[in-house]
């Protein structure tokens, strides 16, 4: 059939046109387009990989943080406990010291009280003595003021001697 015989002219022009298109596009279109496409894909793959890596790092950091937090918590408890112990100890010690100090003060006070009491007693005794002597003197003066008194006193003294 007529339709199945290729025409030389069309074949020739097609060949030339195709080759021209091929070389022009190959140089100025396909090369940059494919280059940029692959570059972009590479960029995307890298971005995904780095995001994945970041994710891993983040989770690692998170677990590290948690570990740190737990550690800090533990430390805090320990510190609190220690502080409490110290407090108790200090309070205990202070109490002890206060007690002994108080005792010492009490003892001292007692001693002082006793001393002053004794002093006061001696003074009182002396005072009483002098008072009694004064009273006795006064009484004697009164009794010995009169003759009868003197006589009676002499008699009494004489009686005393007699008795001895």
């Amino acid at each position, binding site marked *: *059939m*007529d*339709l*199945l*015989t*290729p*025409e*030389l*002219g*069309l*074949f*020739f*022009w*097609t*060949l030339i*046109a*195709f080759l*021209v*298109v*091929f070389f*022009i*596009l*190959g140089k*100025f*279109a*396909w*090369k*940059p*387009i*494919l280059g*940029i*496409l692959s*570059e*972009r894909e590479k*960029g995307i793959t890298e971005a995904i990989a780095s995001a994945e890596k970041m994710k891993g790092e983040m989770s690692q950091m998170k677990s590290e943080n948690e570990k740190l937090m737990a550690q800090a918590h533990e430390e805090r408890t320990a510190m609190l406990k220690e502080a409490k112990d110290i407090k108790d100890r200090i309070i205990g010690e202070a109490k002890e010291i206060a007690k002994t100090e108080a005792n010492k003060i009490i003892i001292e006070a007692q001693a002082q009280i006793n001393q002053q009491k004794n002093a006061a007693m001696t003074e009182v005794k002396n005072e009483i003595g002098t008072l009694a002597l004064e009273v006795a003197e006064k009484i004697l003066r009164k009794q010995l003021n009169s003759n009868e008194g003197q006589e009676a006193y002499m008699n009494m003294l004489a009686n005393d001697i007699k008795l001895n």
Partner: protein
Amino acid sequence: MSCKSLFSLLIVAFGAFGFVNPSFAQTTEETTTTTAATTEEHAPEKKGINLTELVFGHVSDSHEWHFFELGEKPVAIPLPMILYSPTKGLDIFSSHHFEEWHRDAAMPGVQISNEHNGYHIEKMMKEKVIAEDGSKVYDLSITKNVLSMLISVALILWIMLSVAKKYKAGGATKAPSGFQNATETAILFIRDEVAIPNLGKKKYIKYMPMLLTVFFFIWINNLLGLLPGGANFTGNIAVTLCLSLISFFVMMIRANKHFWGHLLNPPGVPLGIKFLLVPIEIISMFIKPVALTIRLFANMLAGHIVILCVISMIFIFAGLSKFAGIGFVPVSIAFAIFMFMLELLVAAIQAFIFTNLTAVFIGSAIEEAHHAEGVDHEHNDAIEIIA
């Protein structure tokens, strides 16, 4: 994979449809002429249409770009004739010099033009330039198909270069936009579905420019051919032959030792079978480009013929009666729209199939020895047979 075989199945279906239809068209034509003969009194012969001339006038190449007829005068763009003959040398003139056509009783169905510069054109299904002195004529005219191709070449170059410019301007980090996006989809499709699966991840990049050029060249030409008044460029055997010879050429150049070894001395085959197998293999090697040629040619031609026939039905029925013609308009238009949609699909599918088979052939030629024997080969053949 299933997607590909579905595509291929569609092609088989349409191909068969397309092949059936020309014969259908011819039978319709016969009936029309007979009815025209019987109803000669009220339907003068001039009004009846010659379907063969009409259809093949539309689908075959021409030395002028004919659009329509205004009254009796054709509205057409004359194209340059570039002729070479050994006796007369190179001759360039406009095709509008061939304007008077007559028929010769000795050659039925042939229209003969007036003589100009020692040449005349004989138009049957195709136009043939004949030298008056009987010498051989090499016709390198810018025909309708060539001009259509030049337009599509300009279109492809403009689209791709502007897209490439956009890529260069945007760099790798900018997202594609507008037409760049559409082109990128096609480019990535060719790369990921055609080149990489068939050629392998290591070697595919070398063949990408060729595959992309083939794909867009065929696709855009297919689409341009679908425009009303467009040329049936990819439905011309010279074109498809040229394209398939290019892919055959690339395959032959790139074929490695492993390919030739398998072809000429198939391993693990008894000697007696080898005498049978090697010729078959060699024949199959040459059948590949032939299959490529015929596939694209037949599919595009068939699509054009079917659309033309469906439209022509209006006039065939109008030849019977005016009312039948008017009544058939909606049916015909609906069919034509359906076929047109189908052809839009086929335009892309055929471009894809051609590119894919080119990749398959090149892939089989550059295949390395470490592949599992047999499996890949069968797989390639399967694609080829289905497609």
